[in-house]
């Protein structure tokens, strides 16, 4: 069995979803979007999936389009929430997990999708945070992700601007700020997977074609590595089949630099799983 990094990455994101959770992704996030459908078709059939900018509840889209509020994404859903229904649910604590990414991510899991450089006169004005600066305060757990770790510019010591809240900002911890959500639980990158211990990202898995020195070189905050560092379990046949059938247009690959997409893995011996 062979698979590519985009497929494995999506599976790693999907595995952060626990059964019965209510899960949401922001717009412009095809990897997270595909991951949610993969989880629902494999280990978490009883999750409640709220689809990006359509706010459709448990849809079965025929394909993932390159824009997040296309009607294809609400196909098969009996109901689509109004904008305010979703935000109310998230703010009162009824949403268990959200996927968040950022142009910059720091070791506390704060993310910046607003501006590189000073906010008043940015070097690069990024698109903006959507609903993140409220949602990240109250949603149960956050799965933070980036497909641009290797660039060396994404995981930073300090975000130029904090759009979405991690475990600690210069104004204090989540408890100090009165936030009811648990904050970042996982940080998944194209190089490896971090958990958060005492509010700081800690490398717990690396992909098998990456070594820790490469991760350290690409990480702007001091790299903490778990004693029992592992490789992510390879995708199962059913997970891979789900990725491929959910996303026939391969919209997920638009999040990766072209050279990452050359990363191909093989379980050898025709086994379904090398784990």
């Amino acid at each position, binding site marked *: 069995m062979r698979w590519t990094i985009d497929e494995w990455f999506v599976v790693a994101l999907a595995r952060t979803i626990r059964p019965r959770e209510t899960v949401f992704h922001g*717009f412009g996030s095809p990897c997270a979007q595909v991951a949610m459908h993969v989880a629902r078709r494999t280990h978490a059939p009883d999750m409640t999936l709220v689809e990006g900018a359509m706010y459709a509840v448990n849809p079965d889209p*025929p394909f993932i389009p390159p824009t997040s509020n296309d009607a294809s994404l609400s196909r098969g859903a009996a109901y689509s929430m109004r904008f305010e229904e979703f*935000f109310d649910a998230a*703010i009162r604590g009824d949403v268990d997990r959200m996927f968040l990414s950022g142009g910059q991510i720091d070791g506390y899991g704060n993310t910046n999708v607003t501006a590189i450089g000073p906010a008043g006169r940015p070097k690069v004005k990024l698109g*903006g*945070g959507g609903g993140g600066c409220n949602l990240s305060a109250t949603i149960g757990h956050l799965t933070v992700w980036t497909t641009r770790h290797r660039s060396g510019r994404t995981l930073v010591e300090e975000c130029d*601007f904090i759009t979405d809240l991690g475990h600690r900002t210069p104004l204090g911890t989540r408890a100090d700020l009165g936030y009811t959500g648990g904050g970042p639980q996982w940080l998944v990158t194209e190089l490896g997977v971090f958990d958060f211990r005492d509010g700081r990202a800690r490398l717990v898995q690396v992909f098998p074609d990456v070594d820790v020195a490469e991760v350290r070189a690409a990480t702007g905050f001091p790299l903490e590595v778990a004693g029992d560092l592992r490789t992510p379990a390879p995708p199962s046949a059913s997970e891979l089949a789900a990725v491929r059938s959910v996303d*026939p247009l391969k919209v997920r690959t638009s999040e990766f630099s072209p050279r990452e997409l050359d990363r191909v893995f093989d379980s050898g011996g025709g086994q379904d799983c090398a784990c």
Partner: protein
Amino acid sequence: MSLQPPRDKRASLTDAIRMVSDGATVALGGGLSARLPMAMVRELVRQGRSGLHLVGSAHSIDVDLLVAVGAVRRCEESYVGFEQDLGLAPAYRRAAEEGTIEVAESCCATVLAQLRASEMGLPFLPVRGVRGSGVSALHPEYAEITCPFTGETLVAVPALRPDVALLHAPSGDRYGNLHLEQPYVLDERFAAASAMVIATVDELVSTDEVVASGVTIPAHLVAAVAEVPFGAHPTSCYPRYAYDRGHLREYVSAAQSGASGLDKYLATYVNGGEESYRTAVGADRLGALATWSLSTGAWQELFR
């Protein structure tokens, strides 16, 4: 302000957009690539509006085009861009980096709270997030308050009452009853919170027909309605048409290339009016966008 009395509110696009003043606070309906009020945006460009204060949630070509022509003083959206597909919004980005517009980036949930305060006639509502994020520093008008019941510290955000909301609907009647398909985004909230609503519809239909489809925005909130076929193009307006990814790509590339590219885009598509816009896009292309409903294969083909 009273509700809009029942009357025939049909207007030409030109006359409807004359109701928007320079410097107005304008709420743009729809979101991302869905149901943006593009015919009204193009008409604002043709009429040379300036100094606009734009508010909304997540937007793309609507805001970018208005910024590109210099119509905008201040942007207060939660996002302006073309998602991972076509990337950053070229004119918005350039104007923000050069400091030619004020960017008071906001958050969807905050804008929602501000609109709800306005709908309820309240001066503010509290939100639980925002504290500790950089977004609060972009908004000196926010204030921290202590809840008199729980003692919690929350952020009070002031009521937001746009001067005008520009909303596009697939269908509506002459009185301004509008039917929308999901996602409604903030359109219903904009309609109730704004001082005035101007609408375009792809097709004017009878009241019976709009009632049968379902009235999403009632006539008593709408001041004027203009019929403009493909009035949301190049964004989608289901069930009529999907978004035109090729056209969005053409716009992004024109806007990236600076003044000459933008001028060419304006000359080709915007300056001549909506009929000329539809001719320039081409009947074949517009017709193809309506084929989404034929089959999953046909639908997918539009996104390749």
